[in-house]
């Protein structure tokens, strides 16, 4: 059993990280009062720009991956301007805009990929390499679980997690951002520029979702194929499941990552092969529905999330 867990763990973590980063992106956006259903599409944008930069950028393989991740984040942020413009400047329906973002991203990147490479897919030759962390990987129990066969991006993601927790809850910017999502009129009266705050939050969410897509590309999928496989929606679920708190999100994404990995490897493991695949695969989604019901009474959702800000409304 121990052996099994040690084997699964690196895969579970690899699957968790893109989810975590994307869900953190969603956290910024929703905490500022803008629902972002477009996370899936922004991930696709990240995967496309990352894959194109890495495979056609002509950079040496070692640095190409990192430039690719940077390109993914920048492209995600640039694309999310569309969502911010619709939701913040025009007070459009945030769900519809998010769906449009998803559809535009999926269709447009495949259109571009076919123009640029002749096929709808872009493969990358080399992703990020797994490494053992010296010294730490020799610690009993924790070493094999956390510090062997890790990706550098995992540590980057954890860094962003701690930074986000700090920024959102310990800085003036974070306080203002959360105020915009809870009670924008009060924040406005206190002199906060709601529009600027929401723009910045949506752009950060775009950058993080793009980076999430890039990390998914360089660690798990290895190719761009016009879809993020529902990962963006799962990130959205993790955001709710984690009740809009950074470490809650960490727990939720790890839970999803572990559950998905178990479902993926279940055929190879006799103890798990007895459980029908349908149960394992639908498990994260069913649990999310149950969690939604369980949290419905005491939901910590930002109060103004999903509502366009109207200055004249009281």
């Amino acid at each position, binding site marked *: 059993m121990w052996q099994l867990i040690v084997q699964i763990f690196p895969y579970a973590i690899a699957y968790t990280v893109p989810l975590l980063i994307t869900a953190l992106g969603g956290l910024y956006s929703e905490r500022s009062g803008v629902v972002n259903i477009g996370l899936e599409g922004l991930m696709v944008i990240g995967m496309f720009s990352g894959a194109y930069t890495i495979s056609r950028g002509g950079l040496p393989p070692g640095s190409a991956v990192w430039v690719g991740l940077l390109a993914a984040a920048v492209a995600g942020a640039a694309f999310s301007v569309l969502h911010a413009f619709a939701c913040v400047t025009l007070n*459009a329906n945030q769900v519809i805009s998010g769906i449009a973002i998803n559809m535009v991203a999926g269709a447009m990147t495949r259109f571009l990929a076919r123009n640029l490479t002749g096929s709808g897919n872009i493969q990358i030759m080399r992703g990020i390499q797994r490494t053992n962390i010296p010294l730490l990987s020799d610690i009993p129990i924790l070493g094999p679980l956390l510090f062997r066969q890790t990706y550098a991006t995992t540590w980057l993601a954890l860094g962003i997690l701690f930074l986000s927790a700090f920024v959102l809850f310990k800085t003036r910017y974070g306080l203002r951002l959360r105020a915009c999502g809870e009670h924008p009129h009060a924040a406005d009266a206190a002199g906060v520029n709601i529009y600027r705050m929401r723009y910045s939050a949506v752009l950060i969410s775009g950058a993080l979702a793009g980076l999430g897509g890039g990390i998914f590309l360089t660690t798990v999928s290895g190719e761009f194929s016009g879809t993020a496989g529902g990962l963006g929606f799962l990130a959205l679920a993790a955001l709710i499941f984690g009740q809009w708190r950074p470490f809650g999100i960490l727990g939720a994404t790890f839970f999803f990552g572990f559950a998905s990995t178990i479902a993926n490897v279940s055929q190879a493991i006799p103890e798990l092969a007895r459980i029908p695949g349908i149960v394992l695969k639908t498990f994260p989604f*069913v649990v999310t529905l149950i969690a939604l019901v369980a949290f*419905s009474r005491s939901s910590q959702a930002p109060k103004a999330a999903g509502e366009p800000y109207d200055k004249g409304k009281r």
Partner: protein
Amino acid sequence: MKFRSGFNRKYVLSLLAVLLGLIAGAILMSSTGHNPVEGYRYLFRGGLMNLARVGNTMAIATTLILTGLSVAFAFKTGLFNIGASGQMLMGGLAATAIGLTYSWPRPVLLTAMMLAAMLAGGLWAAIAGFLKARFNVHEVVATIMLNWIAFWTIYYVIPGYFKGPFLETESRRLPAAATLRWPWLSSQFSGSYINIGIFIALAAVIVVAFVLERTTLGYELKAVGYNRHAAEAAGIKVNARMVLSMGIAGALAGLAGGVFYAGYAATMQIGILPSQGFDGIAVALLGASSPWGVWVAGLFFGVLHTGKGFMTAMTRIPPEIADTIIATIIYFAATSVLVERYWDSIDRSLSARRERRSVSKEEGGN
């Protein structure tokens, strides 16, 4: 008078969204080194140039009209059904299961299949409606989760119980008697994919229009959509109406699954979340959520989807341009607020000027 101008405005906004979507498509085509005029000529010719293609356009539109109707119906009650894809899958599964299991006389079999599709889709969506009504769970998130549960259900149920002889990834082919293809109709359109589904879609449009405009139920559903609290105060059982509305929307999407998997196709493939469910949102938005608007919008998107293959063959423009245009149209439909606001300000300044003029006339008269 006021009502009429509002009515016209909705359609003008839809046309404007289409126009902007087509312009965006043209920009994308020319920026990737293609000729947009040629592209659009082949795109529309590909959808309309002969009877077979018109038949295919209608066959594709059939599914889009029904999913569009599903989204539009939920919209009327203030609910957002983005789970039409999952409801299509469940409806398709129910229809396929009956079609592959029983060999009843054809009219009975087809009726049973379509009713089962509606029931399956309706129950699937009613889960989201129930969670919304009873626990206040947002229906957007609930239907997204239900989409993926349906996706994985199909992924295991089709190979497990209805596996085809050659492929693990698709169901057995439905016998000809269990599909909506009708040889007479197909031969009228030179052997295209058109099937009885288009009449089912037409009937659905008429029934939905009737229910929404002429029945107490439709009135109550719309009242809940306009103002939930006012409706509750007026004695309408809001929670029950929400579940019912979601259920009806799901039944329409389930029916879309039925006509798609037993009409356009004859097998169910696994690992695909049908994009028609999301296109349905575009159809509903473009049709301004009115049943006949949905009918027209569905046919228009049918042309784009049918024409894209022909366009790619003639001009080497990738077929994804059609999806890009549809997606852009949704974005512009969502941001039409901008136009509306501009429109309002023009309206206001015009009427202000008129008032001023009449005032100055009166003053001049004195």
